């Protein structure tokens, strides 16, 4: 009997340590586990009970509570503008995400953990990712930049001497990078991304229509009718429910695509300027590659209709939308886990 237990225990330890890649985004958390695929793809939101500090809900369920909670519930987005703002909540969120799928048995302390972060984070912010790893009990943690993972996940061969360029428009940050020979040559990051766009829509609703709308409504409007096309023939429409600023009563209005386009155009103008800035800092030989290969767009922002057309008008290069924009980063971690992010080693699938 004793022998049997010992054997079982041994088997477990050898099978429990896994390679785990996490795209810890402001908007969504995606977890990849070696041999299992992407096990979590949900909003990075967590809800606590105010008094006991117990977790009530995470992911989609917690996201549904945004703007709808009562006194007893504290809803936290543990990441803000691409970086960790609430360490404890982040830790809880990852722990729960890893155990979302019931039949996976992972011993996280023996796993290798890869966390993706925006390109331009301060050393302090980077350290916070590292300490998150140690807080989770993982000894083997390494951090890679999102653009690198995103480029790999978009199917670009970044290990050749052929330069490639990628724009990752996420929830909290937009990252732009030029990659060659397995690493980043030039990169730029700013915080104009999905959440910023939601805020812009909220502001627009308040100032133009006198209607206070919630974050979730703003996001829904962006997803449903967000567009950047210059020529819109049949503008789509959607409703917006909120509270009237003056009367304080609930009100419903209709908004159309044209109006939202004008709201979105300004932040994307900034992103276009950022693209130009990165191109200006790119060595001439890589510029030559980019004009041939075009620029790839990944992240949730890539799903906005006409984003490639918009950027093409301003920058002049060819733009391609990544095949699976939402999961590109976490798809890329698959490969990076194999070579631990070293540009020396070209991981082969």
């Amino acid at each position: 009997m004793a022998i049997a237990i010992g054997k079982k225990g041994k088997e477990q330890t050898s099978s429990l340590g896994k390679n785990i890649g996490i795209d810890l985004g402001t908007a969504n958390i995606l977890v990849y586990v070696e041999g299992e695929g992407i096990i979590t793809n949900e909003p990075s939101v967590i809800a606590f009970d105010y008094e006991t500090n117990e977790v009530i809900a995470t992911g989609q369920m917690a996201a549904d509570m945004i703007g709808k909670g009562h006194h007893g519930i504290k809803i936290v987005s543990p990441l803000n503008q691409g970086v960790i703002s609430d360490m404890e909540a982040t830790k809880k969120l990852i722990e729960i995400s890893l155990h979302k799928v019931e039949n996976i048995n992972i011993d996280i302390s023996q796993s290798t953990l890869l966390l993706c972060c925006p390109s331009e984070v301060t050393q302090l912010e980077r350290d916070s990712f590292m300490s998150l790893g140690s807080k989770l009990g993982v000894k083997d943690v390494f951090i890679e930049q999102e653009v690198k993972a995103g480029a790999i996940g978009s199917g670009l061969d970044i290990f050749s001497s052929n330069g490639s360029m990628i724009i990752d428009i996420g929830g909290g940050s937009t990252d732009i990078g030029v990659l060659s020979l397995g690493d980043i040559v030039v990169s730029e990051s700013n915080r104009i991304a999905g959440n910023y766009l939601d805020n812009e829509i909220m502001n627009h609703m308040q100032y133009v229509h006198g209607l206070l709308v919630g974050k979730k409504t703003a996001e829904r409007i962006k997803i449903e009718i967000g567009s950047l096309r210059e020529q819109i023939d049949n503008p789509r429409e959607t409703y917006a429910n909120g509270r009237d600023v003056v009367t304080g009563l609930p009100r419903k209005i209709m908004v159309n695509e044209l109006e939202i386009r004008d709201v979105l155009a300004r932040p994307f103008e900034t992103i276009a300027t950022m693209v130009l800035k990165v191109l200006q800092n790119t060595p001439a030989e890589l510029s030559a590659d980019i004009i041939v290969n075009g620029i790839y767009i990944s992240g949730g922002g890539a799903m906005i209709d006409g984003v490639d057309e918009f950027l093409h008008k301003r920058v002049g290069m060819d733009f391609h939308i990544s095949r699976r924009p939402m999961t590109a980063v976490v798809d890329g971690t698959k490969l990076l886990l194999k070579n631990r992010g070293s540009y020396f080693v070209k991981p082969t699938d």
Partner: protein
Amino acid sequence: MNEKLGLGIDLGTANLLVFLERKGIIFNEPSVIAFDRESGRIVAAGEDAHKMLGKVHSKIAVVKPLRNGVISDMRAAKALLTYVLGKVENLTEKNLSKTTCVICCPSEVTKIERDVMIDLAAKMNIMDVFIEEEIKSGALGAGVDIFKSKGILVVDIGGGTTDVGVLSFGDIVLSRTIRKAGSFMDDEISKYVKKTQSVEIGELTSERIKIELGDLHDHAKVVTNKYAGRDMVKGIPKWVTLTTSEISSVITPVFDEIIKLISAVLKDTPPELSADIYQHGILLTGGCSLIRGIEQYIEKRIQVPVKVVHNPLTCVAEGTKYLLKNRGDYLVNPLQL
């Protein structure tokens, strides 16, 4: 492996060629090496490193150990040679101690620059070293019998230098060098594109332009090609269209200087040898002799027949085969050994 090895090295600005006795040419790739900045480890050498030029991130340093025909970065030159010998033939410093080595250098280099070459070999634990001029080796490698009482004029237009020399009785009668050759033309092309189109192009692209569009024929067929670079004003990638006539106008001044050098050498040549040269013509070696129409171009201006050798890129390295046999001694004709 304790036998005595013979090693011939053509350490050129553009290409490194290594000749090993009984094996032939074991390496013929660009003289470029890429290091990892942090660990100093070698990431790539030769062709692979050449592709990285102008494309690396801050973790890699791509180094060209030679500039204008002479060693400018000792550490990189040593690393490159050691890497090549180790990689290709599995030779380590231990094997090399019994090696005889000939290194080819441009004709007019200073004593210090020559000493640096010997130093390089010493650093690799090769004690038996001698230096020979590239034109001598080149002529031998092209299969010319330089040991007869016949004057031969050799023009070697390489990557960093152009050498012009007159050979007779197995050695050099006189020789001259200018530090204008292939790389200089690349620079001129990139300057031209910058000036006329406000577009910055990389090293690899300008070299490609030279190879694809360089044509010295009087009525060259007009070829137009598109190349990409970075717009100087806006900073974004941009296509530029270039034609053969444009590129010819950029590279002809360089060839005119080379012709001046040839004339200068011919002026100083003893009359008896001049007569030989007039009869047998000029031998052209080096990478730039592959530019279309170069024979006619020089012929028309010097009025002497010009001939490109059959192996312009490898003749210097091939010539070391003979130099290793006679150690550069003009009294011993290695062709008869």
